[in-house]
């Protein structure tokens, strides 16, 4: 122990100096490392591993946990766009969505155009689920809507269709900044994937995506596209906007939003 005591301070000084140097290097170097494109490619490769692992663990029929009425959040936070200013959307709000149509097109045999009443006339599903925001918070809400799978079956997918894209009416800021999202076919035909038009037993409000939003449970909040006006079946996501399948995925978030 005496040996340690004798040499300790000198070694401590050396250690402190090297730790401080290393720390400085790390802080200074971190941002240049995180913004390096080839490093990003390696780091982002983990998303594929996550997606494949979760697809392996999640059987297609497995449901997200559902809750009771008593579990509902007292306030359900509205996030992202909460009041779109786009002229066409304002007009729809003014007319109570009387002229709004949900278009279903792309790689389908029977393109469709539905009024809100036609959508509501379809078989519905009601579910109380937890909404998990990528930011970290959760809210529990009750949703009623038309199952997407049945709608897509009616439209009949062409064999080359691989994804369903949701085109929204809210601009996030600037030209060509309308929100969009996409999901794989496995999730399209999941029992809890619905086009919701009611939330907590009332028509969907503007902050929550009126007239129709997607509920694709088992995924984070940014996958739950609001203000939907068009559903498109595609073979690839490459040709849409930034090519990564969604407004936020185009801006660095994972397309696979299950984690």
């Amino acid at each position, binding site marked *: *122990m005496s*040996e*340690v005591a004798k*040499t*300790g301070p000198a*070694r*401590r000084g050396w*250690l402190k100096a090297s730790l401080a140097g290393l720390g400085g290097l790390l*802080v200074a170097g*971190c*941002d240049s490392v*995180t*913004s390096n494109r080839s490093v*990003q490619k*390696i*780091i*982002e*490769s*983990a*998303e594929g*591993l*996550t997606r494949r692992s*979760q697809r392996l*663990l*999640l059987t297609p029929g*497995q*449901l*997200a*946990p559902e*809750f009771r009425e008593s*579990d509902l*959040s*007292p*306030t359900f*936070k509205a996030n992202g766009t909460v009041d779109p200013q786009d002229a066409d959307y304002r007009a729809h709000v003014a007319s109570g969505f009387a002229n709004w149509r949900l278009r279903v097109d792309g790689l389908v045999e029977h393109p469709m155009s539905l009024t809100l009443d036609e959508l509501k006339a379809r078989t519905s599903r009601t579910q109380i689920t*937890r909404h*998990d*925001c*990528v*930011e*970290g*918070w*959760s*809210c*529990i809400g009750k949703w009623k809507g038309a199952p997407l799978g049945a709608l897509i079956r009616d439209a009949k997918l062409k064999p080359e269709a691989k994804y369903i894209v949701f085109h929204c009416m809210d601009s996030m800021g600037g030209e060509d900044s309308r929100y969009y999202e996409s999901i794989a076919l496995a999730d399209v035909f999941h029992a809890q994937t619905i086009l919701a038009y009611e939330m907590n037993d009332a028509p969907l409000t503007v902050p929550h995506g009126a007239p129709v939003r997607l509920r694709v*449970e*088992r*995924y*984070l909040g940014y996958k739950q596209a609001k203000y939907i006006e068009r559903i498109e079946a595609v073979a690839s996501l490459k040709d849409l906007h930034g090519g990564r399948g969604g407004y*936020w995925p185009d*801006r*660095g*978030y*994972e397309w696979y939003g*299950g*984690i």
Partner: protein
Amino acid sequence: MPVTHAEYTLRRLPNSDNLAPLNTQRDKARMTATNDAIGTPAASHEPVPDRIYRHSGLTRATHWVNAISLYVLLLSGLNIFMAEPALFLGQYADFNHPALHIFAAHTSDGRFVGITEIFGQQIETTGLIGVSNNAMGHPVSRAWPSWLTLPSYRDLGTARHWHFFFAWLLVLNGAAYLAWNTYVRHIQKDLWPTKADLRQIPQSIIDHIKLKHPTGAEAIRYNVLQKLAYLAVILVLVPGMVLTGLTMSPGMDAAFPILPWVFGGRQTARTIHFIFAWSLVAFFVVHMVEMVLAGPVNELTSIITGWYRVPKAHDDATGQGSGAKGNVQ
């Protein structure tokens, strides 16, 4: 015939001209050959080796991968936290009743302050938490200072990519460590406390407070507090981080509904994730202090090369049987 670790260890043992103890040593060395050779404390009448092969190659490699992973996970995790700088209990976030909330505010006398609120109790943490200076030296509203986050600027998307990449690394690395060290019985033999160890907890606490370090035969094995600290990290804190992390994934909660049930909801899981993260930071601080106190060069050498120089026993302090503090790696 290839030279094994055991034989290599043997050649470096003192008094190797004495045949009887040599055989004992050889047997002991053989028993721990595939192991981190610190398991059996030498009986007092046996010679204490100058150096021992303390950490297996796998333990050393996984130690450093673990260290780097936890460092990146902490910094990227703190960046992720800034997107919602509050913690809640339960399934959903009750925004009016956070367990913890970090925010910036303007006081009536015009100051820009950082506030940390824990169960309604507000503490001013300006400069570090809530409000800290940006690269230009201007105070900005952010939960953690830029030097504590990766990237240094707020970027949830990038931080998540880094967090999940290193989470995978941590899991694969940790699984390799646990599987191998259970198989070779390193965890059972060297880390799991014996009944005698547990009886020495009070004495060990006193020894730690007095900064008393063991020497000779006692320094070959870990002391009981050290064992418990390592077990807490490898069996509770790191696995707990992984499980509470997975509970935050909506996909995993659908695959394993037991996850949010066990942790009392996704928001509670997130709170535990946060507490465990800082518990690991606390472990790291103690780990570094002990390393420096026990002799940083010897300690660092042992976790890089595997070879640990056994501190010599003093005439006046035998270091035997007191359950004195071991050397922390």
